[in-house]
């Protein structure tokens, strides 16, 4: 069999970026959570918030460390596998990605050290300030990276001269039509991630009656956030979809599994879309609902996949189902938020074992939703790398052979599995240590090493035999 460098590069890029995405999504939300705990500690003087903050800072440190390591690989991926694309877009992508690095570095150099190691060395107010700055830094980082991605979805403000895009307007190209929606959706996704992980981990501690007072408070705060954010995310998602309908109609057609442009289109609950035969199998749907959701009119017109040639259609099955997974998880989050509210009114949200165990499981849901969401966005753009302008095939590195791509694909999978299983294993140890250990004298006597995120966690990675 001939190895296809294009297919292998797509798999490799998807693998590496999905891997990376998991961690920043968590750190962005967690940084704000910590800033929140620190603010509460500062305002109320209640030591419980301190204890919580100390624990979650350790978790943050480890997740952040893994995020940085995997991010470094990303910045080289563009050049190795997509050199035509990076050459063509360098005038925009270069500065924007550099600004991401600069921001990340700036926050790391100046404030991360204070946040992780400075608690006893600087006044409380300064420590709080550092926490807020670290949180802001993560937003600025995502600002840049999402501007880069949104430009690929809805290009604007560029001009193609001799095979290279030139930036006509920085404001138009950075604040391109889909940027605002994507940024909001992503920020709320990060908050939801933090809320659900904090809720899940605290629920687990509450079930075990460990550090009951502190963990119950954390659980309570997380549930309030969930109650506000989960519905908000659905609303933002709806607007995001409307924007996509305007600029990338084919993607919406794939999300809805709609082949023919028509009015009164049903919302499909189940179907097996089939690119080859240009149809769906086993359709189950609610009549006219898709038209209503997308156009706010029961008989509105929804674009169909057949409007574009077959080779310009995205892989419908993947887009269709990823979209359903994301939305289903979003609805499930709303359901949990409402369940929590009911239990709270009855005063027993920290007692119901069903609910608490459910929350433990739910702590995985935001990660799955985030990855599913990105697959919708990115696979839905296929075959375009820059929507309507450059395809995957045109962006690929010309000298790349199937063998080379396969070699590095396997390589990255091996490296990531080794290194990150160590990372996740360690993270689980930090979780198991819990709030108690984070506040106890350090288990590992360490050399002072500022700025190393992991050094903020003081748990041994293995056991003494």
């Amino acid at each position, binding site marked *: 069999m001939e190895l296809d460098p294009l297919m292998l590069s797509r798999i490799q890029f998807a693998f590496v970026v999905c891997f990376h995405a998991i961690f920043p999504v968590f750190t962005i939300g967690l940084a704000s959570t910590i800033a929140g705990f620190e603010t509460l500690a500062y305002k109320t003087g209640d030591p419980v918030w301190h204890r919580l903050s100390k624990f979650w800072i350790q978790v943050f440190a480890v997740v952040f460390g893994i995020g940085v390591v995997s991010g470094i690989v990303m910045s080289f991926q563009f050049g190795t596998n997509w050199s035509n694309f990076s050459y063509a877009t360098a005038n925009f992508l*270069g500065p924007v990605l550099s600004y991401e690095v600069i921001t990340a570095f700036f926050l790391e150099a100046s404030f991360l050290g204070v946040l992780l190691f400075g608690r006893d060395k600087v006044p409380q107010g300064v420590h709080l300030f550092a926490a807020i700055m670290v949180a802001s830094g993560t937003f600025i980082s995502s600002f840049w990276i999402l501007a880069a991605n949104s430009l690929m979805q809805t290009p604007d403000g560029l001009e193609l001269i001799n095979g290279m895009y030139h930036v006509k307007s920085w404001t138009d190209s950075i604040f391109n039509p889909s940027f605002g929606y994507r940024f909001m959706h992503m920020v709320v996704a990060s908050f939801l991630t933090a809320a659900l992980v904090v809720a899940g981990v605290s629920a687990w501690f509450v079930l075990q009656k460990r550090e009951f007072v502190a963990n119950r408070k954390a659980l309570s705060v997380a549930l309030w956030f969930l109650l506000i954010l989960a519905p908000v995310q659905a609303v933002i998602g709806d607007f995001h979809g409307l924007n996509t309908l305007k600029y990338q109609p084919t993607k919406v057609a794939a999300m809805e599994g709609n082949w023919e442009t028509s009015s009164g289109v049903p919302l499909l609950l189940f179907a097996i879309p089939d690119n080859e035969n240009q149809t769906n199998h086993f359709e189950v749907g609610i009549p006219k609902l898709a038209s209503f959701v997308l156009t706010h009119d029961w008989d509105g017109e929804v674009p169909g996949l057949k409007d574009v040639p077959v080779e310009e259609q995205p892989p419908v099955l993947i887009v269709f189902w990823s979209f359903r997974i994301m939305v289903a998880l979003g609805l499930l989050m709303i359901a949990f938020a409402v369940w929590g509210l009911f239990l709270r009114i009855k005063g027993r949200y920290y007692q119901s074992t069903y609910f608490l165990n459910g929350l433990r499981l739910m702590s995985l849901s935001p990660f799955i939703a985030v990855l599913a969401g990105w697959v919708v966005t990115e696979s839905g753009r296929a075959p375009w790398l820059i929507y309507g302008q450059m395809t995957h095939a045109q962006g690929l590195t010309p000298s790349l052979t199937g063998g080379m791509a396969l070699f590095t694909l396997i390589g990255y999978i091996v490296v990531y599995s080794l290194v990150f299983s160590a990372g996740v294993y360690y993270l689980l140890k930090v979780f198991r240590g819990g709030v108690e250990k984070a506040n106890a004298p350090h288990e590992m006597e360490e050399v002072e090493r500022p700025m190393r995120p992991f050094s903020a966690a003081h748990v041994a990675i293995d056991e003494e035999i």
Partner: protein
Amino acid sequence: MEQPFDLTVIWAGIIGFGIMMYVLMDGFDLGQGILFPFAPNEKARDTMMNSVAPIWDGNETWLVLGGAGLLAAFPLVYSVFLPALYIGVFLLLAGLIFRGIAFEFRFKAKTSKYLWSWSFSVGSIVAAFAQGAVVGTYIQGFKTEGFVYVGGALDWLTPFTVITGLGLVVGYALLGSTWLIMKTEGEVQDWAYKITPKLLVGLMTVFAIVCVYTPFIDEYVKARWFDNLSIIWVLPVLALYCAFVVFSNVRKRKDGMPFVATMGIFLFSYLGLLVSKWPYIVPPKFTIWDAASAYNSQLFLLIGFLFVIPIILAYTSWTYWVFRGKVKEGGYH
């Protein structure tokens, strides 16, 4: 757009400076990993790692900054070098990952410590070799058509690049050993004193091979050295002088000088390489102006860099200041 300044030259300066900073700074901590298997004992290894633990990742910032800066300022370099060095880049990244993660975990490990030692050492050696091969490939030049690399996957792997790869491994080891002379005492320092002259001989051998070989790769470089610009001969002479300084100070057992002079060897060799190729940045065809991005993109990012580079320098100096002096057993005190 109006172009009041030639930003391309400014960017060439920034990137050139960034690479130099990276090589000097990450060089000596990669050197620790390269020397790791040869260290006299486990306690020495702890000391070696401790001597660079607080600063190594600041050192690596220059690499990330350089990579992103290249894409922004010289996209052609980015889009030719990375495909041409495809496998090498993967090895470099994998090496740096293993090494980085070892810094995190070796300090937290009890029974699995030896695993992290290996991860640290192999990662450092692979990364250093890959970087040396990049230099060799740059000297050799790239096969391009239009603005696109068209050579094979392993064009970068030739006897010459293997030599430059090994050369950089030895060079980094020398930076590492002279660093240890400066920063440690007792057993580790004695050991570092002992190996430094051997490493120096190794490095100078590679230096000689590269000096003899480079002019013959293309006429352009040859002309530069033998016809028009005789003043540049001062660079290799200074490099040789620095090598002599390392040697004599090791004999006199002066702690600080060997490291400083080793940095001098690197600096003057690097400058020598740059003047050979200037203004070619993707040899043999493209100059820095061919490879440059649009004026307004260069300007847009320059603002950020001018803001952040002083901060990095200040922050770096501050960390080095905090961790000045000798490492004692168990780390800095």
